[in-house]
Each structure stands twice: as structure tokens, then as C-alpha cells.
């Protein structure tokens, strides 16, 4: 096939392409009727539509890092404060409530108990036990005139284990039942509090 052979075909194609297409006016109407019959897309509600509409926003690297760090911090704090080891919620309580089962509440059913320790030469004496979370500075004793140290605190009914810290050294209560040294090198004392009395 040569160029001279192609020429009549090219001319024929061009002629056919230039010829206007005659469309049946009824066909146009049928197409438009079908389009009008299609249900219109439901417009989204104004509020939800705005909220759910995807959008793009820009964030600087510093902003992104701050946002990520903030989320991690919230997660760490929330996880630490909201649930303790016993699976009990501590929301609304101070973050030190790690051992919530320890009897630290001062309810109206508590019994007021007086602790006395004789140490005329001591400078500082503290009462430390399960009732104050074994805090070595939370419950100081006051010096009395006869060389003894005293403190009066409310305790819930039950068995309490405790000791005294006398100028930094642990000491058992000589007037209370003993508990054996279980490996910490210091024997404890035991106070059994009943409603209105104590052992």
C-alpha cells in the first residue's frame, strides 16, 4: 500500500467526519426524562455535614511533636491515676492513693488511740505504720514533760502494724504485742483496735 492508494480513503474519512450528525429530537427528550427521574443526592445536615466533611489542614513539625508529646503525657497520667493495681478506680482521688486498701480513712467509726513512747533523750519521734502508709514523717509525737512522747490518732477497727522512728532509728512499742522480724531487720508492734478500746 502506497501513499497514492491511501489518499481516497483519507478523503472519504474526512468527509464522513465533517458530515453533521442528525439526532432524533425524541431521543434527546428521552435522555433528559431519564436524568430527571433519577433521585437527587440527599444533602447532609448542616452541623454533621460540616463536622464529617473531610478537610486538609497544615501542621508544623514543632506543632506535631507537641501534639504527640501531649497525647503521650495524657495517656501516661491517665493510666497512672485512673486505675491502680487492684483494678479500682482512683479518679477524683489524689495521685498518692496507690494502696487504697490501707486503712487511712478517718471515718466516724474510728477509735481514738493514744500512743506513748518513753525516750527522754530523743529529739524527734515519729509513729509509722500501715495506718499512715508507712510514712516516716507524717505522724510526729509530741514531747511530754516526763520524758515521754505521745500522739493521739483515730484508727479504724482492726489489726494495725506499726513502729516508732526515734531519731532515725526504728523501735518497737514495748507496751504492745510484737510481730516477728520478717526480714527487714526490725520487729514491729501490733495494735488491735476494737470499737472503743484497743489491745
Amino acid at each position, binding site marked *: 500500500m502506497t501513499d497514492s492508494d491511501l489518499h481516497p480513503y483519507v478523503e472519504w474519512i474526512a468527509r464522513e467526519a465533517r458530515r453533521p450528525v442528525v439526532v432524533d429530537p425524541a431521543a434527546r427528550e428521552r435522555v433528559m426524562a431519564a436524568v430527571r427521574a433519577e433521585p437527587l443526592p440527599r444533602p447532609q445536615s448542616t452541623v454533621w455535614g460540616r463536622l464529617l466533611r473531610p478537610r486538609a489542614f497544615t501542621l508544623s513539625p514543632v506543632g506535631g511533636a507537641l501534639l504527640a*508529646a501531649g497525647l503521650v*503525657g495524657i495517656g501516661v497520667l491517665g493510666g*497512672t491515676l485512673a486505675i491502680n*493495681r487492684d483494678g479500682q478506680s482512683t479518679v477524683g482521688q489524689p495521685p498518692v492513693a496507690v*494502696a487504697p*486498701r490501707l486503712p487511712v480513712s478517718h471515718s466516724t467509726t474510728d477509735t481514738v488511740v493514744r500512743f506513748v513512747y518513753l525516750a527522754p533523750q530523743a529529739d524527734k519521734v515519729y509513729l509509722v505504720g500501715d495506718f499512715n502508709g508507712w510514712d516516716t514523717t507524717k505522724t510526729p509525737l509530741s514531747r511530754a514533760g516526763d520524758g515521754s512522747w505521745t500522739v493521739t490518732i483515730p484508727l479504724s477497727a482492726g489489726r494495725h502494724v506499726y513502729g516508732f522512728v526515734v531519731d532515725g532509728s526504728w523501735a518497737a512499742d514495748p507496751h504492745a504485742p*510484737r510481730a516477728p522480724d*520478717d526480714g527487714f531487720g526490725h520487729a514491729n508492734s501490733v495494735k488491735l483496735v476494737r470499737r472503743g478500746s484497743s489491745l
Partner: protein
Amino acid sequence: MTLSIRRGFRASVVAASLLFASTLSAQDGDPLAKLENNRYAFDLILDSAMAAGIPTGPLLSKAREGIAKKIDSRKIVEVVRKLFGELRIAHAALGGVGEQELSAAATLLEAGAKPSQLELFRPRQKGRSDLTAFIVWTDFLSRSIPNEEASSAIAKLWRDGADDEIFQSLWTNVKGDISQGLNPGTALQNRIRETPGRASPAPGKPPEGQENQSSR
């Protein structure tokens, strides 16, 4: 390019600082954080206790006691693990009792009592708590009274229906005799002979603790 590397570096520093501050803040509220590398082992013990139905209060308290006494964290975990074992034994011997009694019984085992000696206290008696008996018994063992003597004395009083006041009176007298220089075992033997087993009942009122109860 250089600008973006600088920005990335600064962002990393800020993020690390915030994360560090958050971690510190979380640790401030957790005294048990001082267990440091042994915290995981401690948590495992707590998990085991919860799975076995053992209260975790005594274990948490023991850990806090160790921290207050500035004991090495490894030693604390060792003591807590031992306590967990004693709580389990006490639980098996006594059945379903309260946390306080279980803790007192575990301390009693630590002092030298045998698990089989606890089984006498397994039947629950209405209006009667074995807390005082356990505390007095533990004290006797801590004062070098032989376990067999202490055990038989406490068991006799318990079977005879002794109440808290009788146990308390026995403890006061024996402690006084020991401080006077009497042999601890002899002091107990002397005092147990003169101790009434049963409290005098109030007129028209049945003695406490004589009704059996299936559970507490």
C-alpha cells in the same frame, strides 16, 4: 533542608522533655516506684495474689514498709514473695476469712506456728474473732515461748470459749512475768493454769461465740 533538620531536632527535644516530665509526675504519686528494677517482679506477685483470691493489701503494705525502712528493693520483693506464700497457706488452712485475720495468720506462720495448728480456727463462730488469739500467740512466739506450748495454751482457751478479754489478760500477765525474769515457757504454763477458759456470761444472756456459723 538544614532548617527542617533543626526544626525536627527541636521538636524531638521538646517532645522528650514533655514525656520525661509526664513520667516523673506519674512516679511522684507512686511510692512503689522506688522498687525500680524489681517492680515487675513485685507486680507479678500481686497478679498471682489476685488470681489466687488473696488480698493484695498486706503485700502492698509490706512493700511500703520495706521502702520506709530503706531496704534494698530486691530484698523487699523477696520478703513480699514469702508473705504471699504464707498468706496462701493461711488461706488454705482457715478458708474464707477477712484480710485482717488472714494477715494475722500469715504473721503467725512467720513467727513459727504450723499450718495444721491454724485449722482449729477454721470453723467460724458467731460473734467471735480469732484476731486476738493470733496476735497473742504471735507475741508469745516472739518472746521465745516454744511453739508447742504456746499453741496448746491458745488452743485450749479457744476451745473453752475464751473471749478477747481473757486472751488480753493472759498476754498482760505473761508479759509481766517475763519482764520480772521468769522463764517465758514457765510464765505461760503458770498463767494458763489460773486463766478461766470461758468468760462469765451475763445474767439471762447466752455466752458469745457458742453458735456455729458456716461462713463469715
